[in-house]
C-alpha cells in the first residue's frame, strides 16, 4: 500500500523535546561562569583549555542540545515517519550529551584527563544513539523530498564532526597521536559549517517562508546549496588532509567559496524578511535578523582571515578567531536557536493542551503561554551579551567580565521564559484534568 508507514501526527511526547530545550540555558550559564572564573585569560589564546571548555559548553550543551530536541520533534512531523522509540532515544541522547558535555568541559577546565575521557565517551554514546535513530527515521520517510534530502546532509556532517572530535579527544585524553594534523581544523569546520550551518539553512528554506510569510528562497538556492556546501567541505577536507593541515590554494578557495555561500544565505534571508507579507512585530524575526547579521559578519571575517592571513593590522589573528567563533556560535546559531524556541515551545504547549481539551474548547493561546514582553526583554539581553562578547574578543582585559555577566543574565532570562511555558502547560493540564463538564476555556 502506497501510504504504508505514513502517519501524519506522530510528534513525540512533549517531554522528549522539552527536556533538551530546558537543559540548554543551563549550559549557557555554565559557560558564563567558566568565563567569569577564568577571566581575560580565557580569550587570550584561541586554544587555551578554558576557551575549549567554554566553546564546548556552548556548542554541545546549548546549540546541539536545542538542535537535537528540535529535530526529534520536527522530523517525524515534517516528513511523516516517527523516530523509533522516542522516549528511550531521548533519554540516552539527553543524558549522554548533557553529562558528557559537563565532564568534558570540567576535564579541560580543571586539567583532569579522566573527566575528559569519560566526557568524550558519554558524548560519543549520546550522539550515536541520536544518529542511529534519525537514520532509521530518514530511511523510512515515505517521500524523499527536499527536507528529507537536506536532513541526510545534516546527519552526515554531524557524524563526520563527531569522528574528528573523537580523534582530538584521543589526543588530549589518551595521548594517542592524531592520524593527521588537519583534524584540528576539520572538527570545528564540520561542526559549524556542516552540522550547524546545514541544519539552519535547510530548516530556514522551509520555515522562514512559512512562519514569516515571505516569498520562497530562489529555487536553485533552496535545492542545491546544501549539496554544494557539503561538496565544498569534502574538497576542503581532502585538501587539508593531503597537506597535513597546511592551507594550500585549494583549501583557501573552498573556504572562501563556503564563506561566500553562507554570506549569500544571510543576505537573501534578510531581503526576503524585509519584504515579508506579515508585518507584525515579532521577536523571532528580530532574532533571525541578528543571526543573519552575525552570519554575514562571521563569513566575511573568516573569508578574509583565510585568504589574507596577515591582513590584521590592529587585531591579532587569535582575537580574530575568537571573534569569528563568537559571531558564528553565539551570534548566528544562538540567535536563531532562541528565536525558534519562542515559536516551537509555546506552540507545542498549546498543541498538547489542546488535545486534552474537549471538543469546542480552547487552550490558552501562544501569547498567553509566553507573553511578548518577556520574550522582548530576553532578546535585548541576548543582543547586549553578544555585543559585549564581540568586544571582549578584541579587548579581553576591558570587556570579559561585563560580557560574562551579560551572558549569565541572558541565560537566566531565557530559562525563566522556558520555565514559564512549562508552568502554563502544567496549569492547563491540571485544569483539563479537573474539568468534568466542558466550559469555554480549559
Amino acid at each position, binding site marked *: 500500500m502506497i501510504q504504508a508507514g505514513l*502517519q501524519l501526527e506522530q510528534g513525540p511526547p512533549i517531554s522528549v523535546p522539552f527536556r533538551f530545550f530546558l537543559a540548554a540555558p543551563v549550559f549557557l550559564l555554565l559557560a558564563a561562569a567558566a568565563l567569569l572564573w577564568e577571566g581575560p585569560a580565557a580569550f587570550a589564546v584561541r586554544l587555551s583549555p578554558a576557551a575549549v571548555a567554554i566553546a564546548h559548553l556552548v556548542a554541545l550543551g546549548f546549540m546541539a542540545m536545542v538542535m537535537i530536541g528540535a529535530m526529534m520533534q520536527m522530523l517525524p512531523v515534517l*516528513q511523516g515517519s516517527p523516530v523509533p522509540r522516542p522516549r528511550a532515544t531521548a533519554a540516552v541522547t539527553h543524558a549522554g550529551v548533557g553529562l558528557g558535555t559537563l565532564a568534558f568541559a570540567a576535564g579541560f577546565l580543571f586539567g583532569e584527563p579522566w573527566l575528559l575521557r569519560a566526557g568524550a565517551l558519554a558524548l560519543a554514546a549520546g550522539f550515536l544513539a541520536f544518529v542511529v535513530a534519525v537514520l532509521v527515521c530518514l530511511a523510512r520517510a515515505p517521500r524523499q523530498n527536499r527536507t528529507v534530502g537536506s536532513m541526510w546532509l545534516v546527519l552526515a556532517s554531524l557524524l563526520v564532526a563527531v569522528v574528528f572530535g573523537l580523534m582530538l579527544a584521543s589526543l588530549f585524553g589518551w595521548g594517542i597521536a592524531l592520524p593527521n594534523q588537519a583534524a584540528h581544523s576539520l572538527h570545528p569546520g564540520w561542526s559549524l559549517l556542516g552540522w550547524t550551518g546545514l541544519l539552519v539553512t535547510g530548516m530556514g528554506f522551509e520555515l522562514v517562508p512559512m512562519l514569516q510569510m515571505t516569498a520562497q528562497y530562489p529555487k536553485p538556492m533552496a535545492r542545491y546549496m546544501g549539496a554544494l556546501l557539503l561538496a565544498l567541505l569534502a574538497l576542503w577536507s581532502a585538501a587539508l588532509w593531503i597537506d597535513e593541515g597546511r592551507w594550500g590554494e585549494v583549501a583557501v578557495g573552498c573556504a572562501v567559496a563556503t564563506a561566500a555561500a553562507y554570506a549569500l544565505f544571510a543576505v537573501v534571508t534578510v531581503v526576503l524578511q524585509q519584504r515579508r507579507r506579515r508585518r507584525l512585530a515579532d521577536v523571532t524575526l528580530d532574532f533571525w535578523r541578528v543571526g543573519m547579521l552575525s552570519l554575514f559578519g562571521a563569513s566575511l571575517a573568516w573569508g578574509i582571515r583565510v585568504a589574507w592571513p596577515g591582513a590584521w593590522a590592529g587585531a591579532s589573528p587569535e582575537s580574530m578567531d575568537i571573534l569569528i567563533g563568537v559571531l558564528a556560535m553565539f551570534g548566528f546559531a544562538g540567535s536563531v536557536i532562541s528565536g525558534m524556541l519562542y515559536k516551537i515551545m509555546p506552540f507545542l504547549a498549546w498543541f498538547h493542551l489542546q488535545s486534552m481539551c474537549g471538543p469546542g474548547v480552547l487552550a490558552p493561546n501562544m501569547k498567553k503561554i509566553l507573553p511578548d514582553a518577556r520574550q522582548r526583554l530576553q532578546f535585548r539581553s541576548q543582543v547586549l551579551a553578544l555585543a559585549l562578547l564581540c568586544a571582549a574578543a578584541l579587548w579581553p582585559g576591558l570587556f570579559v567580565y561585563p560580557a560574562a555577566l551579560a551572558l549569565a543574565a541572558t541565560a537566566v532570562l531565557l530559562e525563566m521564559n522556558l520555565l514559564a511555558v512549562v508552568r502554563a502547560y502544567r496549569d492547563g493540564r491540571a485544569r483539563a484534568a479537573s474539568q468534568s463538564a466542558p466550559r469555554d476555556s480549559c
Partner: protein
Amino acid sequence: MTGIGEYMINHHKECDEVFARAEEAVGEADWARAQARFDAFTRQMDRHFDMEGNVLFPEFENKTGHAGGPTQVMRMEHDQMRVVMHEMRAALEAKDAEQYLGLSETFLVLMQQHNFKEEGILYNMIDQVLGDQGEKLLAQLDSVA
C-alpha cells in the same frame, strides 16, 4: 494541465494572503476593515476544508481503502483550526486585539505545519493515486463554493 496538488498549493497561498490581510487590519485596530477581511479569510478557509473533506479525501480514501490513515489526521487538524477561528471571531467581535493576535499567532503555526505536511507528502500521494481523474476532480474543486 495543473495537477491537483498544484491547484491546492495555490489555494494555500490564497488562504495565507487573506489571513495576513485580516491580521494586519486587527493590528491597526481598523475594526470595520478587519471584519470584512476576516469574513473573506473564513470563507476561503471553509472552502479549502470543503474541497479536501468533501471531494479529495473521500476519493483518496475510496481508492486506497484507507479511512483511518493520513486523511483522518488532516481532518482532525481542520477541526482544530475551526475551533481557533471560532475564538478569533469572538475576539474580533469583542474588539480585543491582544486576544485576536495571540490566537492568530497560534493559528498561523498550526496552519503552516498542517500545510507543510500536505504539500510535502499528502498532495504528492493524491496526485499519484487520483492523477488519472485530474480533470474531473479539478472541475469538482472549482465548483466548491
